[in-house]
């Protein structure tokens, strides 16, 4: 499924622009901090409106000036840099949040499958604040997958983790890429991470 992105947006005195197509696998948006990589993901997710351009996934248009689907209609999963779990819901209720809202036909993974895939069965009854960085990031990934997305956005998901945990989560990301075959747009400024994970690389802000 091709992801076709051509967006531009002014934010204060910065102007952010990107134009690329992404195929299957993991497409890394690579560039220095402050180049607007996160803003591009936000535009794809529908959290930030581009000034102009278009965003298409396969034959679905998410944005083209006339069309501007709200985030909840885009089927774009988002794993944030800081996890962003809901603090007032246990892990289980975080995981099922989107799963319970989206139409049944959109789901392609059950709670049990997600829990197994991510190895988080022992965390289900915990509160988010009690999770380590790596555990929280697994739950955030599970929460996004369970909402049945067609593509997954990941915004520096390893940045708050130590080396051992980074490796753990990288293995999870590789399995999402290779076993689930979910297209991923992946933001990073870390060369080693990109070299290991990326199917293709898009340079941003150079």
């Amino acid at each position, binding site marked *: 499924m091709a992801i076709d992105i051509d967006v531009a947006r002014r934010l204060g005195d910065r102007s952010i622009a990107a134009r690329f197509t992404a195929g299957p696998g993991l497409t890394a948006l690579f560039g220095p901090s402050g180049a607007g990589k996160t803003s591009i993901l936000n535009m794809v997710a*529908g959290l930030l409106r581009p000034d102009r351009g278009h965003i298409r996934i396969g034959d679905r248009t998410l944005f083209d000036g006339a069309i501007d689907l*709200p*985030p*909840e209609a885009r089927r774009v*999963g988002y794993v944030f840099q800081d996890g*962003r779990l809901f603090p*007032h819901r246990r892990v289980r209720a975080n995981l099922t949040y989107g799963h319970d809202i989206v139409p049944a036909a959109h789901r392609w993974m059950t709670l049990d499958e997600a829990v197994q895939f991510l190895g988080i069965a022992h965390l289900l009854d915990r509160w988010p604040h*009690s999770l380590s960085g790596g555990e929280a990031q697994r739950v955030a990934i599970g929460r996004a997958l369970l909402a049945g997305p067609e593509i997954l956005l990941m915004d520096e998901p390893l940045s708050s983790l130590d080396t051992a945990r980074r490796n753990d989560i990288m293995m999870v990301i590789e399995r999402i890429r290779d076993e689930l075959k979910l297209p991923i747009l992946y933001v990073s400024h870390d060369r080693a991470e990109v070299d290991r994970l990326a199917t293709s690389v898009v340079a941003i802000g150079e």
Partner: protein
Amino acid sequence: MLSPEEWGIVALSLKVGGVAVLATLPIAFALAWLLARHRFPGRVVLDALVHLPLVLPPVVTGWLLLIAFGPFGPAGRWLESWFGVSLMFRWTGAALAAAIMALPLMVRAMRLSIEGIDRRLEGAARTLGASPWHSFWTISLPLALPGILAALVLGFARSIGEFGATITFVSNIPGETRTLPLAIYSALQVPGGEAMVTRLALLSVALSLGALVLSEWLVRRTHRERQRHGD
């Protein structure tokens, strides 16, 4: 220990305070949300209006209510002709006075907690398929809950303590508008009323402290509920 008359006063105070706070809660929440989240023309004016009862002498607030809801006031005439209802000299009028006086405190408490919500969590909910309304009910509102509880208690305490606006607006009628503070005031005017004053004053203290302890407990419980099962 308490006479039937005194029990009546307590019951009336609880009724006036309870109705005032519960009826005001949705309005106060909407105002708090508007002021915390939206920029619109007239926002400063609205903010000032909401806070007015906090800084005006209560007697002036009561007098303004009298002008508005009296038999010849615009609101009073409207209520009378559409619903055949008058708030004058009625406990409902006392509840209205209490509600107006409690409003600023309730709005402030809820506004603080709404401003404290991490809005990025709402964005996360949207990417998971939640409509703005669903995200409001499942994310924003539960996260604002401590502020809502605080507002309820503060508003209730303020309501059952209301004196100036009430006595100005609906007078001091036994069994109808004579709430605890008004009853204390009346007992003070009567020779030999000191014993009753003492009992009613102690009762006021107990009610206010009770409300405070209850809110503290509720807030802690919501907090602990989220902390438990940690580690």
